[in-house]
């Protein structure tokens, strides 16, 4: 049965009870049976209880309590099992009563009783008829009329009445005058009464109306027929003759029994419907009481049965919601009690499991946090490490690499975890594949490589070691670390050259001055004495010129060796560019663009000016009459000083060496100009770049806007 049908079932049952009560109301009113009213009251009470329950159920919106649905079904089933047979029994019983009544009130019984009553009535009718006939005969009796008129004595009248009594066989004969005074009185046996009883209403009516009449009087269980006849005297007097006839006791008793039986029968017949109603109502009462008792027992039984189930359902719901501390009472020892015990054991195990899971989860969370922390530290370390790191597994696949690797090796920009290292080591990166192969064989390796790039040669230091981790994180592979040591190599080389220059300057500079002075003295003193003055002049001049060249060279060496630290100050770039304009004013093919006067840079303006002059000198030397352009750009936190020329450009084979010390393509050059310029740029925290080798030949000096002076 569905819940919706269950909701309206009490209302339907209540409607049924009310309908039944209303149908039986008229019966109760007409019969007045107490049991009928009891039934009515019970029906209404049941209907009201059901109505109240039904309305409460119908308007209830919240979910019913667990077990209520099962309880309702149990009650309905149990009551239904009782109601159906009860109704069948009631119907059968009422049919039996109906049939039985048809038999009881059979027509033959009716006829028999009717005839018996008529027989009894015939006896009374005959007595009445004979008495009236006799009395009518005596109504005109002259002796009685004379006695009424007072014409005869008491004795004469009594004698005449005695004669009548004897003749008619009556029990008593009395004669009254108009004033109801006793004139004469005779009776068959016994003594006369001293006090005469007053006349009855019927006697008075007979005397007044002049009719002969009779009546039956019962006395002490016996009956007597009493007759009255008016006597009219000749003198106008009126009297009353009263006679009594004692009815035979046996006949009277039989007749009265017949009458009683007849009345009982008629009463039963009259109340036939009421008897049937009584039976029906008694049966209905029994049925209602049975249903009520059964309902109460069913409710109690169902409540007792479903209460543990409801408690279990509530407990299950709480367990479903996560409350594992629920405990179901184990009240009984039956299957439900066993179920409750099993549930409690299950809840206990769930609690224990949940506790274990919680502990494990906590440990796992902690481990995960530690792992994440370690991973985070490792990732941060790798990200901030200037050394390029790549981890290769046993299959030669990259498992891990950091950003520094891609910055050191721009060719590895598209590397990612999962890539086979050998597939990535193509072109200029071929050395790394060879290194990895060697590493696999040796287990640990360190090599230095030189990579030619657009901005010159890059020195790479590659170190590798073979990893063999055991335990939970079982791993086998190689860890390769790559460092860009270009600056270190350059610094070492500069240091070496500086040392050489310092020693050379120290050893060569001292004798050059006496040589030059001696050559000049020779020229002044012995010029007039020599034969071939031209040869003398050219030789001495050559000595002086070469000594001067050596002095300049030594000066360059000295400046490289003793490069002073830049003295930084806030410099207006426009001022520097104005000075450059004035300096190269004589060159028509040099165009110098002056930037916004507000543009400033924190730098040593003398050193910057030295770099620019060097670059412009180189451009003029290479470009000849071609155009040379100098301009400044500001980008983010960098000031860029650009020098371009439209000359023939720098050959490819020279390009890689132009920033090296003592490399020069000019016969008179020291090969230190660009090296010093680059040294100045690096001392400022910037760099000097060859942007383009030809068309145009383009150098760019990048200096930080704010101070980034490199520590000595």
């Amino acid at each position, binding site marked *: 049965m569905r819940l919706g049908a269950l909701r309206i079932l009490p209302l339907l049952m209540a409607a049924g009870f009310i309908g039944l009560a209303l149908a039986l109301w008229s019966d109760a*009113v007409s019969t*007045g049976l*107490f049991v009928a009213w009891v039934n009515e009251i019970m029906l209404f009470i049941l209907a009201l209880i059901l*109505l109240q329950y039904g309305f409460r159920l119908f*308007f209830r919106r919240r979910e019913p309590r667990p077990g209520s649905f099962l309880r309702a079904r149990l009650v309905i089933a149990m009551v239904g099992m009782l109601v159906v047979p009860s109704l069948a029994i009631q119907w059968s019983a009422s049919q039996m009563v109906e049939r039985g009544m048809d038999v009881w009130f059979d027509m033959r019984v009716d006829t028999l009783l009717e005839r018996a009553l008529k027989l009894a009535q015939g006896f009374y009718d005959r007595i009445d008829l004979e008495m009236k006939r006799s009395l009518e005969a005596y109504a005109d009796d002259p002796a009685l009329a004379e006695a009424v008129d007072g014409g005869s004595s008491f004795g004469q009248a009594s004698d005449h009445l005695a004669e009548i009594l004897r003749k008619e066989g009556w029990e008593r004969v009395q004669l009254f005058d108009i004033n109801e005074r006793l004139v004469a009185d005779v009776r068959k046996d016994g003594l006369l009464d001293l006090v005469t009883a007053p006349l009855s209403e019927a006697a008075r009516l007979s005397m007044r109306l002049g009719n002969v009449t009779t009546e*039956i009087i019962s006395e002490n269980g016996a009956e007597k027929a009493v007759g009255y006849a008016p006597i009219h005297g000749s003198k106008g007097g009126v009297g009353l003759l009263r006679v009594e006839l004692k009815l035979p006791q046996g006949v009277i008793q039989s007749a009265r029994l017949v009458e009683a039986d007849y*009345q009982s029968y*008629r*009463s039963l017949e009259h109340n036939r419907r009421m008897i049937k109603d009584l039976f029906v109502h008694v049966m209905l009462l029994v049925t209602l009481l049975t249903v009520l008792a059964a309902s109460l027992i069913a409710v109690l039984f169902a409540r007792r049965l479903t209460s543990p189930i409801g408690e279990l359902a509530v407990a299950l719901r709480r367990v479903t919601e996560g409350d594992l501390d629920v405990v179901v009472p184990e009240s009984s020892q039956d299957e439900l009690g066993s179920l409750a015990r099993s549930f409690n054991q299950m809840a206990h195990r769930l609690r224990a499991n949940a506790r274990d899971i919680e502990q494990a989860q906590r440990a796992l969370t902690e481990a995960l946090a530690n792992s994440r922390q370690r991973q985070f530290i490792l990732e941060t370390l790798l990200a901030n490490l200037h050394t390029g790191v790549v981890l290769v597994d046993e299959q030669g696949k990259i498992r891990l690499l950091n950003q520094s690797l891609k910055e050191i090796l721009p060719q590895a920009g598209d590397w990612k975890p999962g890539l086979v290292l050998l597939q990535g080591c193509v072109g200029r990166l071929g050395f790394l594949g060879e290194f990895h192969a060697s590493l696999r064989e040796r287990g640990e390796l360190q090599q230095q490589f030189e990579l030619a790039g657009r901005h010159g040669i890059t020195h790479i230091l590659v170190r590798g070691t073979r990893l063999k981790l055991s335990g939970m994180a079982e791993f086998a592979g190689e860890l390769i670390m790559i460092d860009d040591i270009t600056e270190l190599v350059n610094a070492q080389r500069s240091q070496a050259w500086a040392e050489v220059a310092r020693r050379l300057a120290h050893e060569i500079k001292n004798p050059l001055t006496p040589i030059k002075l001696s050559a000049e003295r020779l020229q002044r003193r012995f010029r007039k004495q020599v034969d071939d003055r031209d040869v003398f002049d050219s030789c001495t001049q050559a000595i002086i010129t070469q000594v001067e060249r050596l002095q300049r060279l030594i000066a360059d060496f000295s400046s490289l060796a003793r490069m002073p630290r830049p003295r930084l100050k806030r410099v207006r770039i426009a001022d520097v560019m104005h000075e450059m304009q004035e300096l190269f004013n004589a060159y028509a093919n040099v165009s110098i663009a002056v930037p916004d006067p507000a543009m400033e840079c924190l730098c040593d303006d003398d050193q910057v000016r030295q770099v620019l002059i060097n670059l412009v000198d180189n451009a003029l030397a290479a470009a000849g009459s071609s155009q040379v352009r100098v301009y400044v750009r500001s980008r983010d936190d960098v000031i860029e000083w650009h020098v371009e020329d439209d000359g023939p450009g720098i050959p490819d084979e020279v390009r890689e060496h132009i920033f090296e010390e003592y490399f020069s393509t000019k016969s008179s050059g020291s090969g230190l100009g660009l090296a010093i310029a680059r040294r100045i740029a690096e001392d400022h925290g910037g760099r000097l770049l060859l942007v383009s080798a030809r068309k145009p030949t383009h150098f760019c000096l990048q200096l930080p806007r704010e101070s980034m002076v490199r520590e000595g």
Partner: protein
Amino acid sequence: MLGSFSTLLRWWLPWAMAFSAIGFALADEKDALRIDRDELVVYCDATWPADAAHVSETLRSGIDVTVIWHLALSRSRQYWLDEKVADIEIVRRVRPDLLSRRWILEDRSTGIMRSVNRLEEAMAFLTELRHYPLVDRSLLRSGQVYDLEVSLQSFDGKQMAGWWRRVLRGDDFSARLSFREP
């Protein structure tokens, strides 16, 4: 608002329906009722519009018929319960004597018994109250309004006894009359 309406429906509607049904079922019949006065006594005339055929047939079948007249006179009061002045119960019974073909009339209130030959007399004895002395006028207050309620219960055969008779057995006849005492 909806909740109180729901509560009204759930708790009071069934009882209201029940009491309405009972009240409807117990509604009084209206019939002619008349009073008469002389200097000392207020008399009452009432007639039960009985099913004459049913009563006569019952009597002819030899079954006793008993009627119980109940006369209640009360003084009407506006702000208090009515004051009962008179409460009279008259029990009359007609017992057929099938053998002598007479009807024995019994007034159980007074103990008077007589017999008549005519059924009409017996019927009138049962169905009519003629000039029945109701109350001594000395008990009534002049100018006051009085309510007379007359009801009748009839029984074929055995008469229902006990206090619950009037509760369980509805009246076969009832009438009400108000009058002002001069």
